[in-house]
């Protein structure tokens, strides 16, 4: 549809825009400003940018210090090193005291590609989901990334924004609603509802197109907020469609698939399947090759839908 852009560029641009409107915004990075694109903010507001070097744990606790002083820190590094290396710092210094710290962490998921398993965070959503007070946004396109940044600034408490690396086409519109904790139905259907998050939203729409040619009408819902989770929407969809499929570029343990399973357990008899990474680490390869190998293409999504419908 409209402009294609890397989500990390959209993130960096949104920070610049937010920084213009709100002087309390400070941006922290750990020697990855040129990868997370906080370098855009650094160029515009050098005196509100702090590089901590290769020291993610230090950066997260320092972010808490900024928040305790009335500032609005956005801390960035790669998703794995933020949620992983600095997990306990986030847990204790930030979330435990509901410190007002935002984490825009980039290079999430398998789509990091060639860097390999050591850099592919397939568990970051799970790690952040079990932490009380945490809000988790997983934007699907550049427009939604911008909205996530502005919404995060309005929330009092820690917010994790998962920012994928690839260039993606814009699939939502500026006026598509973005209410934290509210799933958005992007396409109506009748036979099955695909609940997708992040980069998988676009793949789900493609799968829905392909299914339509075979007479199967698959609804597509964009789950941009993983926490707090919109169980109301999920239960209503279970009732309405009777068949649900979750799709995520993340482990099926602890992410979107788990959130839906927890919602449905004991409350609905809808047929339900999960697509995601099945308790494995990733490895090096082009993102497209990895999506193929891990079963995250429109083709895989369509066959799961058929299995549910058939």
């Amino acid at each position, binding site marked *: 549809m409209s402009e294609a852009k890397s989500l990390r560029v959209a993130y960096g641009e949104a920070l610049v825009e937010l920084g213009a409107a709100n002087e309390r915004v400070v941006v922290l990075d750990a020697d990855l400003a040129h990868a997370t694109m906080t370098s855009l903010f650094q160029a515009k507001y050098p005196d509100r940018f702090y590089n901590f070097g290769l020291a993610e744990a230090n950066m997260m606790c320092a972010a808490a210090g900024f928040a305790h002083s009335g500032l609005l820190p956005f801390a960035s590094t790669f998703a794995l090193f933020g949620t992983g290396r600095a997990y306990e710092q986030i847990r204790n210094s930030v979330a435990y005291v509901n410190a007002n710290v935002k984490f825009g962490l980039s290079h999430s998921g398998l789509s990091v590609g060639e860097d390999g398993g050591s850099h592919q965070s397939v568990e970051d959503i799970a790690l952040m989901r079990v932490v009380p007070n945490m809000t988790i946004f997983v934007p699907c396109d550049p427009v939604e990334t911008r909205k996530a940044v502005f919404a995060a600034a309005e929330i009092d408490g820690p917010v994790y924004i998962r920012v994928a690396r690839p260039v993606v086409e814009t699939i939502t519109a500026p006026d598509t609603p973005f209410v934290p904790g509210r799933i958005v139905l992007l396409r109506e259907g009748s036979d099955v509802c695909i609940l997708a998050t992040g980069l998988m939203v676009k793949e789900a729409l493609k799968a829905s197109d392909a299914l339509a040619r075979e007479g199967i009408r698959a609804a597509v819902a964009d789950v941009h907020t993983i926490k707090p989770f919109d169980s109301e929407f999920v239960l209503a969809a279970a009732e309405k469609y009777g068949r649900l499929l979750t799709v995520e570029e993340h482990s099926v343990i602890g992410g979107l698939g788990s959130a839906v399973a927890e919602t449905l357990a004991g409350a609905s008899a809808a047929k339900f399947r999960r697509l995601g990474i099945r308790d494995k680490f990733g490895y*090096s*390869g082009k993102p497209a090759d990895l999506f193929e190998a891990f079963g995250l293409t429109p083709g895989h999504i369509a066959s799961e839908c058929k299995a549910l419908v058939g």
Partner: protein
Amino acid sequence: MGHDSLDATATRLRRDILKMLYLCQSGHPGGSLSCVEILEGLYYRTMRVDPARPAWEDRDRLVLSKGHACPALYAVLADLGFFPREDLWRLRQVDSHLQGHPDMTKTPGVDVNTGSLGQGLSVAVGLALAAKHKRKDYRVYAVVGDGEVQEGMIWEAAMAASHYKLDNLVVLLDHNGLQIDGPNEEVMGLGDIVAKFSAFGFDCEEVDGHDAEAVAAAAGRRAEGRPRFIRCRTVKGKGVSFMEGAAGWHGKPMNAQEYETAMKELGGGQDV
């Protein structure tokens, strides 16, 4: 191995590194080129390894703690015969054993997984401590980056290395002065890094990191009851004029023109 001079070997290794990186259109040229002579000095002069027995219990261990520089390690391992040189050209492909960061479960000759910076030195401490525990005389060499030493873990490892008197551990710093966001001193100043390791109890030395013989000699020395720290003065992107000292070449793919120029500077011919 050993059939030509170390200088000629270094050039050959650099050519292999560039070819690997050009073919996969990703990866890290700057930090790979800066540690060529460090790895060369270790593998061709100092270390006791046997390409036919990568898992030999008594071998010396190498931990490339700055794991993103693994193209340099892979070039060395292939040159020594740990695996076929042709494998290099599949670096970072979906079915290759050569991962974007070193993987001991996939690549013969890789002793420790790295890539998440700061962790390798702690694993090296464990290897060295285990050698003492098992009364083995193998030695452990860890190559760290100058951005990497900003990680707090490095200093936890340094304290432990000294506390446990790990005189079988040698830490080599690839001091190229640059990290991703620019010069170390702008991003997060290291101060007097030799004085710091010295204060942590290390026996310290400084060498020209592009003189493989000097690196080998320094790495071979021992200090009774103390770990060693060698500051290797290097140039990021060494050997390719437009990459030398340029932070922008930390992790950028070469286009065809750049590749051709680079290969020309390293002796001509493209070998693709």
